[in-house]
């Protein structure tokens, strides 16, 4: 194989890995909610804005006067990537105030849309009923053909492989690799590349000299 062909194959390989591993996420933005309150104080607006953001997001702060921002998801004691954010701004206006709402979420990594978040922030601000936001779909568990996540015991040795939802695997000696499932076809990257076949009940996979049974 010539050097150029090898380079091309390498780039193609890299592109395939990258595109298969990454869902094309994008920023979903919601704007346009502008609520006029004819009588009220800016302090009242600030208080409601902070409370509304705190109901759905965390790290709520006011970096500039009368402007509030919060980021999410709202988790309790769990560090997670930020996939949603909301801002509420208060403007004095003719004896009352104007309040505006802007929301952004990372789609599809966030379970609800920016519009749904902003609608609930407005309803909370106004003391109106709110529609519960969507929650993340729980990852499949047990023996399923939808995922290889779980602990797999070798049928020929004491070796175990722990496969996670993100396509990574770790063996009992902490050696890492990766997995890809396409239908019932399994590609394991673990001391080289191995093609295996998943059983229809999702409990066994075998091929390339390997045979595993999932603990489920």
């Amino acid at each position: 194989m010539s050097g150029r062909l090898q380079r091309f194959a390498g780039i193609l390989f890299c592109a395939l890995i990258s595109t298969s591993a990454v869902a094309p996420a994008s920023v979903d933005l919601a704007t346009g909610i502008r609520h006029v309150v004819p009588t009220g104080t800016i302090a009242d607006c600030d208080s409601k804005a902070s409370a509304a953001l705190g109901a759905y997001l965390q790290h709520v702060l006011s970096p500039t006067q009368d402007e509030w921002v919060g980021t999410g998801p709202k988790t309790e004691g769990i560090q997670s990537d930020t996939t949603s954010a909301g801002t509420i701004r208060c403007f004095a206006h003719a004896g009352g105030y104007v309040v505006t709402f802007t929301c952004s979420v990372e789609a599809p990594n966030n379970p609800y849309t920016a519009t749904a978040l902003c609608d609930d922030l407005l309803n909370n601000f106004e003391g109106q009923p709110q529609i519960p936001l969507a929650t993340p779909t729980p990852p499949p568990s047990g023996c399923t053909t939808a995922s290889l996540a779980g602990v797999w015991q070798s049928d020929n040795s004491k070796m175990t492989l722990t496969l996670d939802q993100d396509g990574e695997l770790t063996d009992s000696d902490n050696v890492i690799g990766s997995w890809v499932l396409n239908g019932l076809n399994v590609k394991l990257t673990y001391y080289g590349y191995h093609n295996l076949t998943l059983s229809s009940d999702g409990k066994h996979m075998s091929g390339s000299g390997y045979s595993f049974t999932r603990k489920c």
Partner: protein
Amino acid sequence: MTGYRVARFVTTLAVCILVAGAAADATLDTVIAQRVTVSDKPVTDCVARARAALTSVLQSANETDPGSGEWVGVAQVSGSIAAAVVIECHPVDAGGYSASFTCSVQTPTYADTASGLCGKLTAAFNTAAAPATTQGGAL
């Protein structure tokens, strides 16, 4: 020669894993920049500056509703929106206007941080020359 090929394969694989891993860990970065207040200009000046700043920095500027004074700009990377910003123009009761900036970027997909992007927009807003014709902006 074989050692060289193995080394090159391992390097390629490492780069691929780094690229894929970095993108998979994308996160949303959102900031609101310092509000700009101008006391001696109409809100139409704000609208013109907002549009000019968005066009200059992102080559994208759209008003959410005609006359709303709320302007949105986005930047795409590989066909997906990697950055979205909003500039809000509000008249101030005492005269003049205020301009507010919200910036959201997807990191590390977008090349800049939300703070960096908002800084560029604010700078472009402050230096933009207001066009002779302006539009909208009332509450």
